[in-house]
């Protein structure tokens, strides 16, 4: 016997999500059948709103429901530093830390020719334009991941930006806080030693 059409469609939709296979999709679909109508309505409108109401901030490239985004509009933030991240969700992590009060810029990925991502596919042009037009910016902090692609992207940015006389810094690499040296792997340790700081 075949699934009734609405359920078949629902299963098919769930399977489009990452990490969800056929079995899980079936279980979720039957769960939705038993949910009460209001919850389902909320769920479906939440799904729809992510597409209808969300956009990318025209200044920093972050996901937002108003343009410019909350961070870019906040004049109490430190306007002289811009922290460059790979993904919008990296901003949420940085904000949780509560120690950084400057601005952000989202690249939306890293340079990776294999995945077809060259310099023109990232929000690099908008960063350069921003640095040229906004004289308050004195420093950019590059916070791409410590992968070969992240490193290459950081190097590329620093070479573009440095000639303009703006200070370019990179997040430190090394021991994670609260960890034992004993358990650190050799590569992390060697980075920690070469990036040591004077006391």
């Amino acid at each position, binding site marked *: 016997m075949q699934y009734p059409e609405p359920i078949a469609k629902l299963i098919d939709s769930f399977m489009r999500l990452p990490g969800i296979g056929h079995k899980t999709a079936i279980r979720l679909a039957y769960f939705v059948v038993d949910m009460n109508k209001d919850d389902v309505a909320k769920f479906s409108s939440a799904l729809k709103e992510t597409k209808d109401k969300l956009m990318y901030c025209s200044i920093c490239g972050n996901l937002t429901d108003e343009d410019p985004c909350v961070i870019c509009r906040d004049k109490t933030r430190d306007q002289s530093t811009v922290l460059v991240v790979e993904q919008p969700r990296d901003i949420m992590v940085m904000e949780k830390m509560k120690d950084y009060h400057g601005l952000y810029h989202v690249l939306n990925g890293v*340079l*990776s*020719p*294999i995945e077809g991502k*060259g*310099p*023109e596919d990232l929000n690099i042009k908008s960063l350069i334009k921003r640095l040229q037009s906004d004289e308050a910016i004195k420093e950019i902090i590059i916070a791409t991941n410590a992968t*070969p*692609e992240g*490193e*290459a992207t950081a*190097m*590329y940015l620093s*070479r*573009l930006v440095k000639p303009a006389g703006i200070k370019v810094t990179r997040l430190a690499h090394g021991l994670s806080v609260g960890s034992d040296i004993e358990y650190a*792997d*050799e*590569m992390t340790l*060697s980075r920690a030693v070469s990036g040591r700081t004077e006391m």
Partner: protein
Amino acid sequence: MKLRELKLRNFRNYSDVEVQFSPSINVLLGNNAQGKTNMLEAIYVLALTRSHRTNNNRDLINWENENAQVYGEVEKELGTTKLEIDLGKKGKRAKVNQLEQAKLSSYVGELNVILFAPEDLSIVKGAPTVRRRFMDMEFGQMSSRYLYNNSQYRKILKQRNNYLKQLQLKEASDKLYLDVLSDQLAAYGAKLIFQRLELLKKLQGWAANIHAEISQGKEELKFKYVCALKKKQQTNENDIYTGLKELFEENKDKEIRQGNTLYGPHRDDLQFIINGKDVSTFGSQGQQRTSALSVKLAEIDLMKEETNEYPILLLDDVLSELDDNRQTHLLKSIQDKVQTFLTTTSLSGIARDLISDPKVFNISSGQVVEE
């Protein structure tokens, strides 16, 4: 280090086998296609978590079964270590003393092996890829830093080649990004080349002595690392880095035209030189074999120096490929210090006389019987 016990479950043609080995020489005797090499392969897998014969785990698992297991007890200076590799459909798990290791890099190195198979005799004469693979495999086992640098280098190389192709096809035009990739590649390339040079220097010290002995002092074996860098650019990591960067800069247009990275450790080669002459072009068959043997035996000593323990030697059907003089040398140099596993179809001649007190295992269709 010595492998005292090996248990195999559903590995290749072994369904359930348990063997106790001798700390000196173990002979695996049997006709063709009975499972002699499979047992050496199991030991190799136990050491390096992967096979030298296949890249597909499924090949290692007995037909009709879904999981295979290799278990071994290794005796070292500081006590016994229990190693276990579980192979399944979805992947493999490596355990040290029953504790699963999240990273394979923390497992490799617990048991060090050197494998000598007939195809290793072609190391001198064969294609450059064979010699690069040789360096990468052996040095990677000795140094986890080498392993790491090599894998980073390969990743960046892939990106750079891809970008060069895009530049070639005019899909991209940003030369600044190419420079960044070149610098990154040069940085890891320099680390690799420098480590290769250092380890080759040490390996040459050992190999030259062994070679001189086999040739009764008539021949002097040397290694030459062949790369596009000038000799004076090879003195330290920094010079190599600058040298590679210059090469990339000078040949930028050529590389874009060809859409490929033309310089770096992935293009380098190793030359064997006897009395000043290149063995691969001017050496006799015999000299090529002696060189290959000297290098393999030198590895044993280098591994001892780098890791403080003698490795285990796996000889896959090589005795039959060597003449009496070379057989004698091989067997003499391993006697009493290196635990050895050798496969052969018949044990006769010089080998029988020289091997004192071997433990012989008769292998026949996946069954092992101690003689």
